[in-house]
């Protein structure tokens, strides 16, 4: 579960953004296991016997500073991470720092655009720093027909992302007629990975990231109570199933124009995550602030220290 607060540290000039400061509090990334050999494991674990080691904090700040960037030209801007060490074993999964940091930024970008009275796409076009970022956005706007008439309770949402020399843009359509049970009905994703090697694999990764974005933004959350995670398995942790995945999807891989090979995989997470949150805001009129956004059904947690009994039919 993650939260975002409202526009606190953004300085808006007349029609312009002069400064953007984002502070990110997250459960720490535990990299004390090192990177495949003993020296980095030892370095990450020093000093021994404490929860928040200097070595691990160093790794985490390094990852954050080298991997999380903003595609926008927002004047004097900064992003800082404040990791919190907790007594729960954690491991990394797709897009640990980048997805929450960039998704929140995409939400705030929509809100800045609204504050300045600009269309979310036009605002992004004006502030995206790099031509390749603008190119993927332009392509998705055409393919997804941005701004087309939507039925009552439905809305489009847009997100743009840049990571590891790759660029993505996504427009989703979201059914928000029941604001507590929103559903993504269509997604269009454009991705520029520099030199595409395996287009089928790129499409797969982009669609997998879409499934994960739907899960983390709308449905799947972990509840920590008295130091214990309450969700026991996939019946309680609501990661996307077949019925949650949109029936209309399109992935457009930008052609090779001589750019170097860029990243793929995690790169696909942030644009759909931002697009879904922004579509939710536009469809329901609610600000996306606490995730997952959909209402979670009540469940009886498995008692602590006890393995659930196997179910027989």
């Amino acid at each position, binding site marked *: 579960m993650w939260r975002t607060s409202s526009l606190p540290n953004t300085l808006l000039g007349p029609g312009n953004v002069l400064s953007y400061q984002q502070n990110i509090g997250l459960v720490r990334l535990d990299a004390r296991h090192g990177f495949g050999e003993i020296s980095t494991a030892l370095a990450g674990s020093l000093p021994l016997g404490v929860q928040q080691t200097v070595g691990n904090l160093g790794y985490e700040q390094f990852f954050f500073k080298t991997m999380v960037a903003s595609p926008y030209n927002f004047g004097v801007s900064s992003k800082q991470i404040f990791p919190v060490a907790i007594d729960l074993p954690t491991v990394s999964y797709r897009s640990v720092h980048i997805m929450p940091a960039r998704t929140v930024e995409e939400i705030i970008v929509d809100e800045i655009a609204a504050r300045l009275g600009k269309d979310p796409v036009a605002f992004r076009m004006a502030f995206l720093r790099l031509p390749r970022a603008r190119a993927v956005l332009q392509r998705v706007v055409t393919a997804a027909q941005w701004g087309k008439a939507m039925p009552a309770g439905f809305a489009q949402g847009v997100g743009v992302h840049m990571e590891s020399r790759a660029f993505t843009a996504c427009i989703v359509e979201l059914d928000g007629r029941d604001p507590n049970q929103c559903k993504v009905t269509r997604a269009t994703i454009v991705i520029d990975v520099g030199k595409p090697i395996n287009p089928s694999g790129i499409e*797969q990764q982009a669609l997998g990231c879409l499934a994960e974005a739907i899960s983390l933004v709308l449905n799947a959350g972990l509840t920590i109570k008295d130091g214990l995670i309450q969700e026991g398995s*996939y019946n309680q942790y609501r990661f996307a199933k077949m019925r949650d995945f949109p029936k209309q999807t399109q992935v457009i891989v930008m052609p090779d124009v001589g750019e170097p090979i860029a990243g793929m995989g995690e790169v696909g997470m942030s644009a759909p995550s931002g697009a879904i949150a922004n579509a939710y805001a536009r469809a329901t009129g609610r600000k996306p602030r606490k995730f997952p956004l959909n209402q979670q059904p009540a469940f009886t947690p498995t008692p602590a220290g006890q393995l659930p009994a196997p179910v027989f039919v």
Partner: protein
Amino acid sequence: MPTYNLTVNNQVHTVDAPPDMALLWVLRDKLGITGPKYGCGLNVCKACTCLVAGKAVTTCAIKVKDIGNRAITTIEGLASGPGGTTLHPVQQAWLDRDVPQCGFCQPGQIMAAVDLLSRTRTPTDADIDAIENMCRCGTYGRIREAIKAAGALMA
């Protein structure tokens, strides 16, 4: 320990097993048939799905004593012909569409699809939505396409 005669992939196996042992563990640990995967053990993720008497069953959630003389089909038994060289249409559709990513849930996904297509060759989106098998890689879009393509191959 009681003895059970199980027909798995058209072959009769005689196994000694505790009556309450889940069929999944009989298949994997006693018979060495490892296509059905262990995910949750709670009948939730469905990675262990096999066919029992032609119907999709989560083998983590059925006891060996309850099988009786019903025939069991695992992913290993889907292909036919000498040496299993002729793929089942669902397997072929999966290959044609390059469905798997990590692959762990895919035997269960394929068996669930075989069960659905045994009931209808032209499943609706609602029929496919009723499949509850988890895929943590998120291959759902291509699974949906492959099921429809396999239905067309089988028609």
